[in-house]
């Protein structure tokens, strides 16, 4: 119990709430980084997934490539970018972390978007075409809205991974909640490390809540109940089995 008392003590020490290494500043740094990463990954991975899913070509290759991408060590990308003089000090280390983590966030969003686009009922797509919609209109007004729950499942997975992994950015270039974890690790101070981890978990939980609400708002109303059931049946958070070729 004394450990938790120390943690409580750390959180109630007013010095930990002020200054450039204070909780509010580092929390904001981590939130800023995570949101920027997820948004850019959504533009790239979501965009690519939509185009591939719409045309139905090259999708399996993309999904498998995305899966292989999971093995890319984020640590390697972070350190490699952080030692390039042109990047390392840009925006207090934000740039290196942003680029490296975006690479991590793209695969789950790409895979889920692709699967979401492909699961759209062929009859619905045909009906849209029969009504005279052009390809881009089918994509925009029919396929994309129907894929929303899947895209958002990918965004949720990516967000959790990014929030957790952005602690690594503190090892190379950036100051965020990972700074507490790294400091704790280096100084053998598990109270600080644990407190940092708690803050990271709190942020991940917060993001999951916000994204849950956002998913509901963005999902076309008639779809809401059905896709929720379907998502939970088939492995909800986007860890859908990768197609084996």
């Amino acid at each position: 119990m004394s450990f938790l008392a120390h943690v409580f003590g750390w959180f109630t020490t007013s010095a930990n709430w002020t200054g450039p290494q204070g909780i509010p500043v580092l929390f904001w740094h981590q939130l800023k980084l995570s949101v920027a990463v997820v948004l850019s990954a959504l533009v790239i991975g979501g965009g690519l997934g939509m185009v591939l899913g719409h045309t139905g070509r090259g999708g399996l290759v993309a999904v498998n490539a995305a899966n292989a991408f999971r093995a890319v060590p984020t640590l390697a990308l972070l350190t490699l970018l952080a030692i390039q003089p042109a990047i390392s000090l840009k925006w207090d280390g934000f740039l290196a972390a942003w680029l490296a983590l975006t690479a991590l966030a793209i695969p789950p969003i790409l895979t889920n978007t692709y699967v979401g686009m492909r699961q759209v009922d062929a009859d619905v797509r045909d009906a849209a075409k029969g009504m005279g919609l052009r390809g881009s209109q089918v994509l925009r007004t029919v396929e994309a809205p129907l894929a929303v729950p899947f895209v958002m499942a990918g965004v949720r997975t990516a967000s959790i991974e990014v929030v957790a992994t952005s602690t690594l950015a503190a090892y190379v270039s950036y100051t965020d909640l990972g700074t507490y974890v790294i400091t704790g690790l280096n100084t053998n101070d598990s109270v600080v490390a644990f407190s940092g981890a708690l803050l990271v978990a709190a942020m991940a939980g917060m993001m999951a809540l916000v994204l849950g609400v956002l998913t509901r708002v963005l999902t076309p109303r008639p779809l809401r109940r059905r896709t929720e059931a379907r998502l939970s049946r088939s492995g909800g958070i986007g860890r859908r089995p990768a197609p084996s070729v």
Partner: protein
Amino acid sequence: MLFGTNPFFRWSYITSNWAQIQGDLLQHIWLTLLAVAIGTVISIPLAVLAWRYRIVRAPIFGFASALYIIPSLALFAILGPITGFVASYTTAEIALVGYTLLILIWNTVAGLDAVPADAREAATALGYSPTAALVRVDLPLALPYIFAGLRVATATVIGLVTVTALIGLGGLGQQITYGFNIGYNTPIIVGLVFSIALAAVADLLIVGAERILVPWARNRRTGSVA
């Protein structure tokens, strides 16, 4: 910048440091194998419980999700005082295994959920006890999903093992932190490329194992779960 004293890649680094790279690679393989094997052994029973008893589903997924969310670095720091900081396999493996659980449990439960009711009824009609049906009907039919989970988990762990370099293990992560500490591109790229190559080989091996163990799925396009 990328050239000059710090070239983008220096081939001679590989030849003159081969023994070290080889050792790191072997440690990487060992850490990965151990994590995926232990993860599988823990996940399958938990997945069966979560699938069969609705009440424990939420706690099991909650537990696995929590392990998934906690940054591995933080886990090292928390476990350190108990299981040891420096080059402790226990500390590293707890974090790595924790990371595989959610992936493997999700996929196994999804696979068990996808077993056709007909198959289960046929097993019951043939007089299989629930346990026999589980072992001889449900789990084999869930294998394509379990293998899909293994592929994702293995790739993820191979990437994540590098982080254990921060507690003195790391496999190829040693190359990465070494390169970072002296500001030298080549070792980092060695760590990066060997990790990806290792993941590719591991993926091929798993797909191969699946083709042997799940022959009935061979001529079918599996994984189209949506």
